[in-house]
């Protein structure tokens, strides 16, 4: 993404960028200085915002556009007894500070107990605030989720949060573009989570560095918005700054009718603009990866970074399978942490906990798909399963469909909305040595609690695993019971 001439065919990312440049960076000895970009939507939560607000206060600056800013409580909040004061003092201080700051600076906040409280990346799309062609930022790396709408959405640090609050802009260095083309059609039981785990296993956790990824191809076109969000969400795990999908009818149908979506004539104008954003015929990407969806099986991670993924039918790899000495060492360390023997079949691994939730997989569709698998069954008695809707709204919708009852009958815990066990920052944590099949996005050491062991999976794999107690594919539980001979 170096020069943007008007007659040159452009990619989606380049068009969104072009439409947000406030001041172009000057050339300096052949090096482009950063462009100043306008930010359409700034999402705020309790963990990365306190110092940003304090910075404004110290400098006597206001928030430039409270009307382009929205806050919610998610990382620190409990998912049980949410009417009681938050027990952990540090969590409580962060949440109380957010409340005071939003009050002082006039920012809309969805607090615990409110129908639109929930994980920041679930709330934006749900309200129709995330729309195609926007620039979206948040002090959280999984902001890439919003790229599913054809937005340029990026995670930022605390000082950038302050910068956006004060100026509604961000200085950004131009980045490169990568096409991630997924051809074919997914087999039943295989989901978008498996696509992104396969992409990360293919290009590595650093493979996307410096790039904005654009997911395209027939398999992507067939996906729902929820499924696209799952993929874009994990772009960051491939090291990319952002991930995007070209807006199409699926996108427009999802946005239409939501509280903040355009209406009437404005809707038609908006759709016309959104259609124009798709990557032009002949536009060039700086890099391309191609994945064949027909060949994909459910994926699962065995190690301690999201690139440590294999097909569920495979076995735990040998460190000697890795040519690069750094990869080999990381594999050895990961196997030790995960307490796994190379050669063990993935499907023979027993788990203690199943976590269905996080901004990757906690939307209504995710809950529905998991519920479909477990309906009328019982969980393995030794497994604990926690189901955490992404937002209070998702929880209400699920309850209206009776999904809560399906989970409860199955033996799972039905919780209130929040980040929950995605990260060890609130009461929902793994105990040391506990093994978890998790629909979240990071299997780092200690991510779900000190000493906890994480296997990343899709919602349907999580559901099948809860039934059998060992890592399982949906096909393992949906096959008819073998008839006795």
């Amino acid at each position, binding site marked *: 993404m170096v020069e943007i001439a008007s007659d040159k065919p452009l990619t989606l990312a380049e068009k969104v960028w072009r439409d947000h440049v406030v001041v172009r960076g000057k050339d300096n000895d052949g090096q482009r200085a950063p462009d100043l970009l306008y930010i359409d939507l700034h999402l705020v939560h309790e963990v990365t915002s306190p110092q940003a607000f304090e*910075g404004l206060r110290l400098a006597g600056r206001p928030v430039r556009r409270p009307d382009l800013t929205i806050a919610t409580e998610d990382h620190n909040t409990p998912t049980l007894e949410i009417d009681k004061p938050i027990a952990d003092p540090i969590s409580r201080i962060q949440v109380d500070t957010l409340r005071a700051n939003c009050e002082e600076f006039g920012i809309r906040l969805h607090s615990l107990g409110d129908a639109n409280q929930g994980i920041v990346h679930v709330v934006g799309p749900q309200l129709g*605030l995330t729309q195609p062609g926007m620039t979206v930022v948040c002090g959280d790396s999984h902001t890439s989720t919003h790229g599913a709408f054809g937005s340029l959405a990026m995670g930022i640090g605390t000082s950038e949060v302050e910068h956006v609050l004060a100026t509604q802009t961000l*200085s950004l260095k131009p980045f490169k573009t990568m096409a991630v083309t997924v051809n074919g059609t997914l087999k039943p039981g295989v989901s978008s989570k498996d696509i992104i785990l396969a992409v990360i296993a293919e290009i590595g956790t650093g493979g996307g560095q410096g790039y904005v990824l654009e997911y395209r191809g027939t398999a992507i076109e067939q996906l729902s918005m929820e499924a696209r969000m799952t993929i874009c969400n994990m772009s960051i795990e491939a090291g990319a700054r952002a991930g995007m999908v070209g807006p199409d009818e699926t996108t427009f149908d999802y946005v239409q009718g939501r509280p*903040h979506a*355009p209406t009437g004539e404005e809707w038609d104008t908006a759709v016309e603009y959104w259609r124009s954003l798709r990557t032009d015929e002949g536009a060039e990407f700086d890099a391309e990866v191609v994945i064949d969806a027909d060949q994909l099986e459910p994926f699962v991670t065995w190690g301690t970074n999201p690139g440590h993924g294999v097909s569920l039918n495979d076995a735990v790899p040998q460190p000697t399978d890795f040519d690069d000495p750094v990869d080999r060492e990381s594999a050895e360390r990961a196997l030790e942490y995960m307490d796994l023997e190379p050669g063990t079949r993935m499907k023979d691994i027993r788990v203690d906990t199943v976590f269905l939730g996080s901004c990757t997989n906690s939307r209504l569709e995710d809950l529905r798909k998991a519920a479909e698998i477990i309906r009328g069954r019982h969980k393995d008695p030794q497994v604990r399963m926690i189901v955490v809707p992404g937002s209070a709204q998702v929880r209400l919708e699920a309850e209206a469909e009776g999904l809560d009852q399906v989970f409860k009958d199955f033996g799972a815990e039905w919780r209130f909305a929040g980040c929950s066990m995605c990260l060890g920052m609130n009461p929902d944590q793994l105990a040391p040595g506990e093994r978890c099949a998790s629909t979240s996005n990071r299997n780092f050491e200690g991510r779900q609690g000190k000493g906890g062991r994480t296997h990343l999976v899709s919602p349907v794999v999580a559901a099948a695993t809860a039934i059998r107690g060992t890592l399982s594919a949906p096909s393992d539980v949906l096959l008819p019971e073998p008839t006795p001979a």
Partner: protein
Amino acid sequence: MEPITTHTGTGVPLRQSNVDTDQIIPAVFLKRITKTGFEDALFYAWRKNPDFVLNQEAYKNGTVLVAGPDFGTGSSREHAVWALRDYGFKVVISSRFADIFYSNSAKQGLLAAKVAQPDVELMWKELEKDPATEITVDLESRTLRCGTVDTTFEIDNYTRWRLMEGLDDISLTLRQDAAIGAYESTRPSLKPTTLPVKV
């Protein structure tokens, strides 16, 4: 942010290379919600040792830290700069700085001056011989004096300009206020706003 052109203050010899951000400020302090008041967190582990340089009366009020090569490596935490600044340091001298630490410093008005290692060694000797030795740093001429040591330091033009003007990132952007306003006036009205609330 206070502009700086020259600074004179007591030098603190820190004979240590690879001072990483975990040593400058341990991770437990990242849970705080403030942006100031990190002076107690600076070199937290080292300060438990009574012999540590900052625990010596003569260096306690130092404002110029003279450290070994590769200062500020490790995590990108901005807290490392906040802790140094809150303690009262205005200048850190080293022969090499980690990239992120270097750019974080400039944003907070902390001068990270690159000085060749042989000169750093000479300065350590001067400061240890006479703890009352003052260091004078002049950004205009990029020169530095510490007792008998008279030398120059390296700093790029852009960072030097920012420090001399006292411009943080936000003030820099606010110089483009007119351009931001112009952009806003052409933004289509159909773009969503969070207020008034619609649910």
